[in-house]
């Protein structure tokens, strides 16, 4: 039999993506990696919805008058932008996508402790998301994402109850994810994977999970009370009926402050992994970074009333919360110093993940420093409820958390998809995001100090604010482009990207010892760990010739 010359197609190895096909195999999966992808699709969807609202807000603010949309509509836009971005994008993002995918892999386990609970988590997220979508499509809600009483319970004419219930349901998704991670990290580590050998990504997710577990139920009960009050005309938060509106604020912020640490801690974990890999060395101060994550989680529960300095709390309460807020700033600063110190005598590569990590450090530092301004009682009186606060939290959540998320997506994309993304485009996107971000949000610090209040649809009495608003909107369009690019080239790479080797970055960590993409049960043989984390010296010495980094 003659063999015509044929190109030999490499046989695609079985992995978690091609093991089974069909919608059912995805919607009923218990594989943590598939669930991570289900989350990836859903949160990306909500990110674009929240981003769309942001775009409309910024377009409206190009001119002083409320001429693009009516004030009622504008009020719904910023409310739903906040709710969608906080509850349906940021809180799940890294834990539900990267955490779900990587936690078992990083500790040498075959799956999370409770795979079916993991799937339930996703379904709860989807149900909450569908409820939220329905709410938005049938009128929306205009209370601000903070839905202060008595406006939300007794005055707003919008779908507060529906939005509240949607977030209530989505909250359980968050709780169950946290529960799963804690049990997994405690009980499913491979032999030899001691606590001090864990990747700092795991420490970060452990700390995050503690907050999810202890904090989320409080917003859940707060939502129950608001819904009950609104539906049944109770008086728990309404002064006309003997209630106290400040009680609502305390209950709300008791969760919502730790919530911001849910949003940033995982991102810090990602950045730590990236820096270690692209500087080719063990993180400086491993135990300090690990413990600072726990410290942030604990202290984060003690500072909530710094959102209420002008709300009518006593001077003494304000003093206590201001003091504690400075305490919680120290562990964050410690991390920034340790990351910087890691670069010292490193061997640094500038691939896209590292660019995002650099961006993170710069922007998180600025955002965090502006937190010092806000914690200072005398200054907070002036800048609270203004654009200064908006700039502060966007620096941390977008400049920090989101950049960390993007960096992590790039770093682990070869592992997740088995394909390489186009490095040139990725570096360009990182640069565009960085520039666009600063242009959007830096002017808002100035606007805030000038006195432009938050949640203003119209500033025609203050035309002097226009220049800065125009700058900000210009930046937002650049930023939008920067976010679209990865979406496009990641999709492109799934079809046309180069196949990825098992460890394109020559990175440390058990996840890189599996195939790209991994098989359904991750490890052919349960790993037995005998080495410390970030063993880059071993990895690099094994390759006398530096392995060309992919891309």
């Amino acid at each position, binding site marked *: 039999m003659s063999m015509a010359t044929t190109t030999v197609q490499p046989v695609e190895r079985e992995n978690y993506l091609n093991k089974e096909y069909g919608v059912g195999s995805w919607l009923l999966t218990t594989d943590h990696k598939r669930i991570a992808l289900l989350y990836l699709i859903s949160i990306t969807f909500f990110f674009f919805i929240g981003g769309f609202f942001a775009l409309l807000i910024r377009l409206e603010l190009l001119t002083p008058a409320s001429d693009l949309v009516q004030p009622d509509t504008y*009020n719904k836009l910023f409310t739903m932008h906040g709710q969608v971005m906080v509850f349906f994008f940021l809180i799940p993002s890294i834990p539900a996508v990267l955490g779900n995918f990587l936690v078992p892999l990083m500790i040498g386990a075959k799956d999370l402790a409770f795979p079916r609970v993991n799937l339930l988590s996703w379904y709860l997220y989807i149900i909450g998301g569908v409820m939220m979508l329905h709410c938005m499509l049938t009128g929306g809600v205009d209370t601000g994402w903070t839905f202060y009483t008595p406006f939300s319970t007794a005055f707003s004419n919008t779908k507060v109850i529906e939005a509240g219930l949607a977030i209530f349901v989505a909250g359980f998704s968050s709780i169950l994810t946290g529960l799963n991670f804690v049990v997994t990290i405690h009980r499913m580590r491979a032999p030899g994977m001691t606590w001090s050998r864990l990747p700092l990504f795991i420490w970060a997710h452990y700390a995050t999970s503690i907050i999810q577990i202890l904090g989320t139920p409080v917003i859940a009960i707060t939502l129950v009370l608001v819904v009950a009050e609104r539906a049944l005309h109770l008086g728990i938060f309404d002064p006309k009926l003997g209630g106290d509106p400040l009680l609502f604020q305390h209950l709300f912020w008791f969760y919502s402050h730790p919530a911001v640490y849910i949003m940033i801690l995982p991102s810090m974990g990602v950045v730590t992994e990236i820096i270690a890999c692209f500087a080719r060395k063990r993180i400086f101060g491993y135990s300090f970074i690990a413990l600072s994550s726990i410290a942030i989680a604990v202290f984060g529960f003690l500072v909530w009333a710094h959102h209420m300095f002008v709300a009518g709390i006593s001077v003494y309460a304000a003093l206590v919360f*201001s003091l504690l807020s400075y305490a919680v700033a120290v562990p964050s600063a410690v991390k920034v110093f340790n990351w910087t110190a890691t670069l010292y005598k490193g061997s640094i590569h500038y691939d896209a993940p590292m660019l995002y990590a650099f961006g993170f450090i710069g922007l998180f530092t600025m955002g965090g420093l502006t937190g010092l301004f806000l914690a200072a009682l005398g200054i907070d009186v002036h800048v609270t409820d203004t654009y200064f606060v908006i700039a502060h939290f966007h620096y941390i959540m977008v400049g920090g958390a989101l950049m960390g998320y993007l960096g992590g997506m790039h770093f682990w994309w070869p592992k997740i998809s088995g394909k390489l993304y186009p490095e040139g485009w990725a570096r360009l996107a990182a640069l565009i995001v960085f520039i666009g971000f600063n242009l959007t949000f830096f002017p808002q610090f100035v606007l805030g100090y000038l006195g432009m209040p938050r949640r203003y649809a119209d500033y025609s009495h203050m035309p002097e604010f226009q220049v800065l608003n125009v700058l900000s909107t210009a930046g937002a369009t650049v930023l939008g482009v920067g976010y679209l690019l990865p979406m496009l080239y990641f999709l492109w790479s799934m079809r046309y990207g180069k196949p990825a080797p098992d460890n394109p970055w020559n990175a440390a960590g058990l996840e890189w010892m599996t195939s790209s993409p991994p098989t359904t049960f991750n490890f052919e043989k349960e790993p037995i760990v005998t080495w410390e984390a970030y063993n880059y010296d071993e990895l690099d010495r094994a390759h006398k010739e530096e392995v060309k980094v992919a891309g």
Partner: protein
Amino acid sequence: MFNNFPLWPDRASTAAGNVDALFIFLLIVSGMMSLLIFVALTYFAARYRHRRGVLAEQIEGSIPLELTWSIIPLFVFMVIFAWGAVVYFKGRTPPRDSTEVYVVAKQWMWKLEHAEGQREINELHVPVGRDVKLIMTSQDVIHSFFVPAFRMKQDVLPGRYTVAWFRATKPGTYHLFCAEYCGTQHSGMIGSIVVQEPAQYEAWMSGGTSGPLSASGEKIFAELGCATCHRTDTQGRGPNLQGVFGKLVLLADGRSVTADENYIRESILDPGAKIVNGFKPVMPTFQGLVSEEQLNALVAYVKSLSQPIATPIKTAATGDQNNDKTEGSQVQ
């Protein structure tokens, strides 16, 4: 668009300078810290970029370094905290003889009434150099009284009074914003603080007034029959209100509370909450029977029954603020 492009807000109160000083200090500290990090990052990124054959040096860490960069920032933070606390404390402690203005916020306007009686909507006239204390409440939802030029902000709550104060230092007209989202026209709840030279202010003040707020309060006090029980002798079924404002009151359950604005207000709306020692709980509630403005007038009246009176003297000659307690003449 480019004509008016400020990058720093007006400074028009005594507090503004204090806040700005702390802010600038923080700008410097943050600037230095950012610079330090950025320079280090850039330098390391360049100096230690990957070179063929050169391996990274594995450095575990350094406890002395960790302690240094934990303790020094903590120390700096404590300094900032203390400074911020001092500024805040000053800002939340109205001076003794401040002029009082009662503010009622509602969706979506500001109603102001000077103790001397002038009523204003969305505007507040004040003289330069006078301590002004705002006693504020809301008719509906939470609002926030924000004057950027004074670096002053205080949430205005339904169901109770909150207090803020300022002393304007520069004549001019300054923005007043509502800074707590309150519904459709939240961004329309805008007003002005008009700071005038004392002489101008006197001229404005004399332009028609229905009498001081406390006088309206006295009328309401009579109309609602309060005087029936709150007599000025010891025979009344209710406590004598002469001189009660500002003093400690002993309650039936043993507690002592200060008779401030919120106490007076609560006593009218929910008299059963704090029964005065030695009296029976017979006072009916006036919840729903008095408006916020009437409550303000009643509070002003009760305050006026205390010596020295709460409001400073209005003298065209001196013009400037004064804390002259000796001239205890009645206003008007």
